[in-house]
């Protein structure tokens, strides 16, 4: 029987502590066939199992262009993330996926890209960034604006360092006021304020925006002011999901099932949905 709820097993090859409550797992499928067949696009998500505690949904954080391993990052919130946090290198987890739609990178080729990420929202954005960097010449200017509550909450410090080192990307990192420390050399301020200050040009530019709802709420007016169109802003919805298959009904908003019709939506699409996310 083709059991759509049956996950693939993967081994935790590496555990990276990004911040006190956020972790990245580097995963490798136990079955090499699965590893070969597991194809995904930037923005898609998966269901990760900690057997005994359940499944949790988060995006795939590594780029589809880098196939030797899969990465995911999660923040400890609930039962499953707590259980995942207890696991060590060498332990086994389950993965179902990839699910959902993706950022339409093919359509965005030839454009400038502006990446805006806050908190754990940087995980899907990182996937896109890495993907884009692996085909750098297909895109024009790249700008990354990335925010965290404090320096210690900032995740992907290693990746950020690499992005910063590159000359073909403009990378701006900010922490919320009060979250800086003595050695902090980045910006201090909330993401919307930093965007307003940097004022990236809006022509021929698509925005990839991920972060907590409150950040998105305050960022959108700024983007509009800077001339970005709702259709050019791509973001993700984070409704609660269980099955990831468009069955369990949990993520239904209006006539979309976020897990199948999403999670990537343009801001224009989101505006047309019932505001239940």
């Amino acid at each position: 029987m083709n059991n759509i709820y049956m996950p693939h097993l993967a081994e935790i090859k590496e555990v990276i502590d990004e911040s006190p409550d956020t972790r990245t797992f580097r995963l490798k499928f136990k079955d090499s066939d699965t590893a070969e067949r597991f194809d995904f696009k930037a923005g898609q998500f998966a269901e990760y199992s900690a057997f005994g505690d359940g499944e949790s949904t988060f995006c795939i954080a590594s780029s589809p262009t880098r196939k030797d391993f899969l990465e995911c990052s999660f923040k400890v919130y609930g039962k499953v993330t707590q259980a995942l946090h207890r696991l060590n290198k060498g332990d086994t987890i389950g993965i179902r996926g990839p699910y959902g739609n993706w950022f339409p990178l093919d359509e965005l080729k030839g454009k400038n890209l502006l990446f805006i990420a806050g908190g754990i929202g940087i995980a899907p954005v990182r996937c896109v960034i890495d993907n884009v960097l692996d085909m750098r010449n297909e895109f024009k200017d790249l700008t990354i604006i990335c925010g965290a509550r404090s320096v210690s909450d900032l995740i992907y410090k290693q990746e950020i360092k690499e992005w910063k080192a590159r000359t073909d990307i403009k990378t701006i990192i900010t922490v919320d006021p009060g979250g800086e420390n003595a050695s902090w050399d980045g910006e201090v301020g909330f993401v919307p304020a930093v965007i307003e200050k940097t004022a990236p040009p809006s022509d021929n530019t698509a925005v990839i925006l991920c972060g907590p709802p409150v950040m998105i709420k305050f960022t959108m007016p700024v983007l509009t002011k800077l001339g970005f169109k709702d259709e050019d802003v791509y973001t993700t919805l984070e409704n609660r999901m269980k099955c990831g298959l468009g069955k369990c009904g949990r993520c239904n908003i209006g006539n979309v099932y976020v897990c199948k019709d999403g999670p990537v939506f343009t801001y224009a699409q989101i505006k047309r949905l019932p505001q239940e996310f």
Partner: protein
Amino acid sequence: MKIGVFICHCGENISRTVDCPRVARVCESYPGVEYAIDYKYMCSDPGQNMIRDAIREKGLDAIVVGSCSPHMHERTFRNAAVSAGINPFLVEIANLREHCSWVHDDVEAATQKAIELVRMAIEKVKRDKPLSKINVPVTKRVLVIGGGIAGIQAALDTANAGYEVVLVEKEPSIGGHMSQLSETFPTLDCSQCILTPRMVEVYQHPKIKLLTYSEVVKIEGFIGNFKATIKKKARHINEELCSGCGLCITKCPTKKKAYNSFEEDLAFRPAVYIPFPQAVPNIPVIDESVCMYYKNGKCGMCVKVCDRGAIDFDQKDTMLVADIGAIIVATGFKLYNIDKKAADSKYKGYGEYGYGKYRDVIDGLQFERIASASGPTAGEIKRPSDGKVPKKIVFIQCVGSRDDSKGISYCSKICCMYTAKHAMLYKHKVHDGEAYIFYMDIRAGGKMYEEFVRRAIEEDDVKYIRGRVSRIYEENGKYIVKGEDTIAGMPVEIDADLVVLATAMIPQENSAALARTIGIPYDKYGFFNEAHPKLRPVESTTAGVFLAGACQSPRDIPESVAMASAAACKATILLSSDTLEREPVVAKVNEDLCAGCFYCKKVCPFGAIEVKDVKDMNGIVYKEVAYINQGVCQGCGTCTATCLSKSIELAGFNNEEIFAEIAAL
């Protein structure tokens, strides 16, 4: 999470019945266990180093030690873990010695059980959260409850150490039972003579605030931060104005209206009185129940004679509130009232001895007053009924004590000594008198105690009869004491003039109610429980509350004084630091989920739970939730089990941890 498992052999204590290497091997195969090893003595220095090294080298996040009871070495292993950088609350102990190897013979069964015990600890430690100690400030003032010799000693020691003391005594004067005694064993020195200077010292001490005729009605708060509410009963005499001249007492027309309780009801007193001449403070009290003024509004003689205008008929009870850092409870004892005023229902009386029926059947304290130079007979031994000097006197020991059938199983400890003293005093005063003592055993353990009893027998010719008295009845002005001599194996009958019963020492009236007010446990008799019978004899289980004297169990004077000094010392240790660290095992409310039923508040034994208002955007209260004062909470967790919505968790023993233990079974 990487867990290290360390299995101790405890020499052979564990390894004799538990296959320690196998336990370690099996545990290593459990998820999350990074490292497992067994060792001869985990608590030894090399053992602890092994733990430290493993934590550092393997990058362990938490450890489980399979060893002796956590009550033995939990602290040792926690300290070891802390020194290697692990939070002490990420250490769990599996009790493989007391709960396993020592109580089982079968190696296979014991090993299997040991594995399961360790597995439970592993699962618990996986869910343990790091905790840190709670700091609370300390109020530098001690409350001493009870002004007997123990309370006096505790107050003086504490005050001399430089801390403020509030001494609360329910009677009009301090002094307690010791002030009633004639002479004290085994030295036969005058009780009043050694006590009075101490009483005066208390009165004059600048650090001691003395509240007589007062009672503690409420204790709130917690160690270092108690709040005591004290009821100062109306004396109807202005303490500020009274000079203690005593004119009101001598002029009071109600001369013999009330029994004098200080004289154990062997004498009378007027409506306005001081309990005894050396009373501290030397300020009288007006007894409303007998005063003419309160009966018919007339009289007022005392007002007329008091030139300082100190009489205040309108005085009311007042409530004082004091911030307190530590409490010393020294409420003492009372004597078992056999049928005197319908004895406590939980004890069965001694109707067969005729106490209360025959005026010449008295108890030990009454005899003390008769023998006392300041007593109603001015120290002459006279019997209460007709004032005749008794020629034959019978003392009966263990009346109430050591008698399960009457409800008291314990030995009152001091009766053997004071009865010997009584007999001796009698013989010293009535040289031709005969003194008989019925005893069960003579318990004279103590410095010079045995010698004292020997003296009574050998020098003063006190006749000891080993046996119980079955009945006492009156015949021709004599009291026929029928008993048996179990050594001679024959019945005994003595026609006594006076019978003195050494009745049991029992806790003060309402000791249980007081214990609940303060929040300390007590035993089935009402004696307060010490925290540990051997190692913490003067501490109650409630942090910051200490015990002194006979409120904890029958004690004689030197023991009471020693306990008082010890309690004072414990209290001053507590007060010597500005803040104190508390174990973080306290409960916490999830305010989002709390439904505000306050069952938790109802069950909290410490009053640690308060009502907290949750307001909406307009500042209107829309919900009330429970809030736990972490300083007050003692961490019993009763609230967590009572909470229906499971919105309270006890740190260190939270529900997830216990579920994990159950799941690992």
